[in-house]
C-alpha cells in the first residue's frame, strides 16, 4: 500500500539507491521535486541523462571526459614528459586546483587491495604501460592516497616502472597546512621528517 502517490514512491525508491541517502531523505527529496517548477525538473532530468549519454573515459588517461581524448590530453601546452598517476577522477580535480602541475595524468580507477581482492588486472595499469611505448616519459609521479591500498599500489608500480629506466617519484607525506605539530601522530610525523627538504 502506498502512503502517497505511486510515482512519488517510485522516485523515492530511485533516490534511496544513491549512496548516503536513506529512505527518509529519499522521500524528502521526492516531495521537494514535486514542489519544484517544471522547467527546473526538466533541466535536472536532462542533466542526469546527459551524464550517461555524453560522459565517457578518455582513451589515453582514463579520466572522465565528454571529448576523446580529454581536454588535458589534447592540450598542446601541457608537458608531455611527465605523468601524474592518481586513483580516481576526483584526484585529478584536486591536483588541477593547485595550478602547480603542468604535465599529463593517468587515472588507475582504484588502488590495489589484497583484502578486497582488487589486483593489477582490475586497474588501468596495462593502459599506463602502453603510454610508455608510444611517447618518451621522463618522470612518473605517483599521487596515491596515503593508506595501505595506496602504499601497495605505489610499491607495485615502482617495482614495475623502475626497470623501464624512468624517474619514479611519489608525492610527499606529512603535516597538513594549518595544523599543529603537537597533534600529529607518530607515523605522519616520521614521514614528514623523512621527507624533509633543505631551505
Amino acid at each position, binding site marked *: 500500500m502506498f502512503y502517497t502517490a505511486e510515482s512519488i514512491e517510485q522516485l523515492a525508491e530511485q533516490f534511496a539507491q544513491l549512496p548516503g541517502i536513506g529512505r527518509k531523505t529519499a522521500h524528502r527529496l521526492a516531495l521537494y521535486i514535486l514542489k519544484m517548477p517544471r522547467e527546473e525538473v526538466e533541466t535536472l532530468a536532462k542533466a542526469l541523462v546527459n551524464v550517461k549519454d555524453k560522459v565517457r573515459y578518455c582513451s589515453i588517461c582514463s579520466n572522465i571526459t565528454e571529448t576523446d581524448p580529454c581536454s588535458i590530453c589534447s592540450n598542446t601546452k601541457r608537458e608531455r614528459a611527465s605523468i601524474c598517476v592518481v586513483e580516481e577522477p576526483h584526484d585529478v580535480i584536486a591536483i588541477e586546483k593547485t595550478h602547480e602541475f603542468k604535465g599529463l595524468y593517468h587515472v588507475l580507477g582504484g588502488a590495489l587491495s589484497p583484502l578486497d581482492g582488487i589486483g593489477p588486472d582490475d586497474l588501468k595499469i596495462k593502459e599506463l604501460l602502453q603510454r610508455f611505448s608510444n611517447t618518451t616519459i621522463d618522470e612518473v609521479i605517483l599521487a596515491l592516497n596515503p593508506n595501505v591500498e595506496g602504499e601497495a599500489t605505489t610499491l607495485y608500480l615502482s617495482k614495475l616502472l623502475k626497470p623501464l629506466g624512468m624517474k619514479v617519484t611519489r608525492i610527499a607525506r606529512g603535516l597538513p597546512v594549518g595544523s599543529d605539530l603537537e597533534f*600529529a601522530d607518530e*607515523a*605522519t610525523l616520521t614521514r614528514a621528517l623523512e621527507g624533509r627538504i633543505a631551505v
Partner: protein
Amino acid sequence: MLVKTEVIVLRSMKYRDTSKIVTFYSKEYGKIKGIAKGARSAKNKFGSALEPLSHSMLLVYKKEHRDLHLISQCDSINPFKKLTENLDRMTAALSILELADHVTHHEEKNSALFLLLVEVLSTLNESTRNFKAYSYAFQLRLAALFGYAPNFETCSRCGKNVPAGNNENQVTFQITSGAVLCSECHEPPGPREYGSDRNLAFMPLSVQGLQLIRCLFGTQLSSLENLNYDAHTGNETEELIRLYIKYHFDEIKSLKSEKYFQQHVSIF
C-alpha cells in the same frame, strides 16, 4: 559506556564523504566494529591509527546489543611502518589480518589470539626475508588456539617418533585428524583418498617438509627469517597448511589475499 582497549586494525572501509567504518581485533572484547567520523579528512584527529595493520589504543563509546560503536579517539601504539614499505611483507601481513577477520566472530574475546597477532606482526615488521613463513606460522598457531593443534612429532597410530627412516615421502599427514603417520603405519593411498575430495587426503610429506612445518609451528617467530628451504619444500608445506586450515575453518571458502600470495610473494 566509554571503554579503552588495545587493538589491531583488521580492515577499514570508506563511509560517506569523510568517515570510515573500521574493524578491530581488541584485547578485551574480541572483534569489534566502529565508525570514525571525519577520519578521511586532511585534518582528522586519528592519523594513521585507523589504518589496517596498526597496533593502537582505542577509546570507543560501546553500547550493548550494537554492532557498530562510535570511535572517540584512537592513538597509535606501533604503526608497524615497515610492513607497508615492502610489497611482499605487506601482502603476508594482510593475509594474516584477513584470516583473523574470517575466523573470528563479533565480540568473542580471545586475548591469546590478540597477543599472537601483535607478536606475529611485530616480528614480521622487523624481518628481512621469508615473509610468507610468518603467515603460515600464524595459520598453524591460530589452528592450535582454536583447538585444532596439529601433531607433527609422533605417529598417531603406533606412537613412535617420526620420521623413522631416511626415505623421502616416508611420512604422511592426515588432514582430517591433523596428525602424522609413519611409513609403517600408513597404507598406500586408495582411490578415495586421492579422489575428488582432496581435503580428506593423506598427504605425503618429505623429511625436509616435516622439518620446515615443525619450525613454523614450534620455533620462536623471530627465528623464522633464518630458515633456508628450497621451492619444492616450500610448495609442499604451503599446500598442506592451506588444506588443513580450509578443512578446519568452515568460514574460509577462499581468501582474497591468497591470490596475491601466489602471484606476488616469492616462495620461502
